[in-house]
């Protein structure tokens, strides 16, 4: 009996909270709403230490906070969300820690693909960005399965950066561009059009014809699935980007609240959006100039 009342009270609070959120988001939507918000989820381990939790519990709390933040973003009307789940630099952690983090990632990817998950509720298409070949086979296969399972969703996009760094992304784009130019050149040569290979013989003639431009590189970036972020939120008060979306963040607002990631809530998102709205015309001007 008490449990039933408790459940009902819980549901009432949830409805009231949801209603209040809708009111706040309606007010915010009068101004410009960011199209793309990126999150650096920093502070899970410190949170676990602060609360005397077991190893790995900080990341689990972080996952719950992430689901809430994504829900708020999609309710507000933010179409694209990107999260920094695991960096290539994080492979330097203790093997047991890397293993348990990978296990948690695998578990949560499986949860996301389920029918009743938030992903299907909000029509979210999932992309995994990064050097997925660095991941273990089960995680890589789960990631590929998630991308296929959500390929039919088109309302919103969630980009999960796994085994990702910006420098690796730039190198990958350069590599792909060079490979593409080589293939173009080889195709021309096989058809007998020798003129197309000036860039290959550049060194001998001293005439180097530049053929790779910024647009080619941007096409091959992992993060090309979404537009450039409007806000990057990094928790725990750290002021660096740690090799995250450096190429894409040229005209992006960087917001660094001092709270740890599992402590992030609705008000931090509201504050970030207000900051974005306050600086919208300046950032738009800068984007046009670049």
């Amino acid at each position, binding site marked *: 009996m008490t449990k039933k009342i408790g459940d009902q009270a819980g549901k009432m609070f949830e409805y009231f909270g949801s209603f209040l959120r809708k009111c706040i988001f309606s007010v915010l939507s009068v*101004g410009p709403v960011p199209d793309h918000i990126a999150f650096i989820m920093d502070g899970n381990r410190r949170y676990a230490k602060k609360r005397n939790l077991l190893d790995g519990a900080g990341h689990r709390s972080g996952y719950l906070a992430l689901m809430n933040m994504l829900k708020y973003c999609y309710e507000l009307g933010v179409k694209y969300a990107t999260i920094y789940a695991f960096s290539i630099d994080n492979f330097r952690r203790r093997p047991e820690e890397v293993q348990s983090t990978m296990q948690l990632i695998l578990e949560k990817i499986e949860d996301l693909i389920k029918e009743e998950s938030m992903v299907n509720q909000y029509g979210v298409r999932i992309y995994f960005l990064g050097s997925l070949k660095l991941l273990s086979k089960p995680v890589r296969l789960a990631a590929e399965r998630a991308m296929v399972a959500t390929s039919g969703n088109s309302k919103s996009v969630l980009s999960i950066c796994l085994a990702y760094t910006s420098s690796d992304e*730039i190198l990958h784009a350069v590599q792909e561009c060079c490979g593409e130019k080589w293939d173009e050149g080889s195709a021309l040569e096989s058809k007998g059009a020798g003129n197309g290979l000036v860039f290959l013989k550049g060194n001998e003639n001293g005439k180097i014809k530049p053929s790779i431009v910024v647009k080619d590189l941007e096409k091959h970036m992992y993060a090309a699935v979404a537009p450039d972020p409007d806000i990057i939120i990094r928790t725990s008060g750290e002021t660096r980007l740690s090799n995250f979306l450096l190429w894409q*963040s040229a005209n992006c607002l960087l917001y*660094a609240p001092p709270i740890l990631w599992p402590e992030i809530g609705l008000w931090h998102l509201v504050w970030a959006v207000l*900051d974005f709205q306050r*600086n919208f015309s300046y950032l738009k001007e*800068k984007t046009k100039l670049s």
Partner: protein
Amino acid sequence: MSESCVFVGVIDCMYGNLLLVGMGMGSTGIISKACSRNDGNGAGTVAPPARILKYGNETQELLKWASRLLLNLLQSFYAIGHICDAGVEIWVFVHFGSFCILPSPYGISKKLTFRQKKKYGISKVLELLQWVADIGVKSVCLYDPEGVLKKNKEPIMQRFSSANLSEEAAVNGRLVTRRNLTLEFVSFEDGKEAVAKAANYLFVKHYANGTKEKSDFTEPQMAEALGAIGSGGADPDLLLIYGPTRCHLGFPAWRLRYTEIVHMGPLKSMSYGSLVKAIFKYTMVHQNYGS
């Protein structure tokens, strides 16, 4: 950590934006400061999009008006919150007087002509460079998205030029000054465009012999390519942004990987105290570099 200190600053004279990138206490430390024009961007400067409601016309108008009022109120609270926060900072500086000279009060925005704004911006930058040189910073990079500072570096060079300018220092636009302060001028072209040029360089170097190399490019190869095309340079340790917002405005992505990015407020209200505070905070930071 190496010993030299590098500041990188960027001045956007068109809009009075200065992004000063400083290299910290190490040999490759760079402190960045972005100075920006204080154009008094306030709340509610954006035209709201139309929002269609499902009620009658009058109710629609009333609801629209109420929403705009609420949004403006929210943004006002946000602005007040920031002003109070700034007030607290000034108090802290006065209290810890041993760290700094008394900070200058927040500047009042003035309407200036374009030329006056340009002059005003350069004089502020010179003052800033003087401060960083006094602190002992060894290397400064001035970043200007439009490249205005690069084209108009004479006043700065005149003020800080050394009698014996080495040729190596003059390469890549780096200038060694009288106080052994290395100055570098960077613009938006040294970011994405430079990476495209480096990609072409790598293509010619590794594919020009007619065979496709099987191994992937590495970070040292990329750094070498960027250096070869004239956009090399060490990564800043500290980036100080003087401007209306915390945004790096396209500073070369390759050099920003682990840089601490600090927002210093508008250029007009820059103060020696906040500069020292930013450097002090930087020295207290502990980076795991992912581990």
